């Protein structure tokens, strides 16, 4: 019994050591694609509520098309479809695919965050002579950001998990490393248990960080009263 346990511990430790070098790639793909998603998402979210009808329509179309196609299919399309033409490597194809996919979800979150701010805030800013852009930048978005931080953090955690899909095009990140270990040593239970555990440790750590950020960015009494 003791022998079995010590063998298992050694095996898990062995798997862990094998997987660990792949973790930075998972983090890198997630961070890069999420930065892309934030930039695109903010732009599309703002365009979605443009007063120019056609612009708002196009932004809405982008959101619906992207959200309506599985991420896996988008990864295939960008890596094999576009990648062939544009000569994209695995990493960039993966980052672009995940980034674009998440930009559609983030756009909707940004839009709802902007629309959650009362008309009175727009009117007050405009009555002081601010342009639409100045109003958005100095008055609306700083308030929206506090509202959208929790849902955006959720999307970040989700994108960390979805980065595992990039393994399908041969990008060596955590999930890919798990497959490699399994195909060498054929220990399925322990390998996938350890892969899952490492993802879990990362996602739980992230949610703690988010809780902390929410505290840091809160303003005394903000949101609890009319202003």
């Amino acid at each position, binding site marked *: 019994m003791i022998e079995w346990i010590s063998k298992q511990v050694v095996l898990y430790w062995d798997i862990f050591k094998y997987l660990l070098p792949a973790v930075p790639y998972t983090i890198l793909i997630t961070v890069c694609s999420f930065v892309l998603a934030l930039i695109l998402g903010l732009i599309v979210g703002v365009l979605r509520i443009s007063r120019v009808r056609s612009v708002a329509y196009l932004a809405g179309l982008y959101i619906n098309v992207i959200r309506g196609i599985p991420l896996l299919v988008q990864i295939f399309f960008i890596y094999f479809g576009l990648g062939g033409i544009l000569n994209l490597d695995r990493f960039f194809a993966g980052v672009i695919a995940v980034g674009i996919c998440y930009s559609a979800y983030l756009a909707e979150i940004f839009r709802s965050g902007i629309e959650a701010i*009362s008309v*009175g*805030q727009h*009117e*007050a*800013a*405009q*009555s*002081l*002579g*601010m*342009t639409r852009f*100045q109003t958005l930048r*100095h*008055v609306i978005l*700083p*308030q929206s950001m*506090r509202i959208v931080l929790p849902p955006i953090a959720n999307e970040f955690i989700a994108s960390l998990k979805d980065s595992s899909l990039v393994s399908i095009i041969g990008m060596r990140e955590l999930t890919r490393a798990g497959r490699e270990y399994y195909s060498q040593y054929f220990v399925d239970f322990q390998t996938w248990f350890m892969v899952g555990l490492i993802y879990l440790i990362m996602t739980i750590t992230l949610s703690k960080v988010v809780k902390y950020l929410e505290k840091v960015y809160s*303003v*005394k*009494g*903000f*949101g*609890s*009263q*009319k*202003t």
Partner: protein
Amino acid sequence: MIIEIKNAVCRFDDIVAVDNVSLDIKKGEVVVIIGPSGSGKSTLLRGLNALQSFQSGSIAVDGIKVDKNSKNIHDLRLEVGMVFQQFNLFPHLSVINNIVLAQKVVRRRSSDESEKKAWQLLEMVGLTDKAEAYPAQLSGGQKQRVAIARALAMDPKIMLFDEVTSALDPEMIGEVLEVMKELASKGMTMLVVSHEIGFAREVADRVVFMDNGKIIETGTPSEVIDSPKEKRTQDFLSKVL
């Protein structure tokens, strides 16, 4: 005339909110508009800085035609300060930054200059001790005094007050009216939509009574409030006095 309103009409679907209104206001004049809810007073006021667009007629402020889609709308809004019933302070900024923001962004003043101006105005409204507080930590009366200071920071030529005491607890109305009285005594051109008949009597150069989108009667406070000629004015005043 610093404000010239000619035959202004504003419709919402089939409701006529402002019905062919003409009104001229001289520089330094304090005009108080009274009337029942839904009489179009606020709509008229909001038309003066194009927060509300009108279907026909013309409105000019300090010689600039008010048009929501024109390029100089931001210049116009600089000349017209506005204070709202619901305060509309920026909740994510401290009191001092509420007053500083537009000075920097719109007037392009330096931080030092904007802050100096903000402190002067806080002094005037008696809230220097609240400079670093956030709006949610203030009482209604304090919020409204900050809102007045914020509007004044842009050095407007005209101040619009849209039922600024209607959302306040009774004991806080006085402190806000005090600030408005001081402003009037300094010669500010003011257009005030209010239910405070006492304030109108004391401060207004002219009182305008509106009902159903029309100006029914206009004159000095003693003419309109104490001896109204029109039946509708008499009915309204008998209810509120």
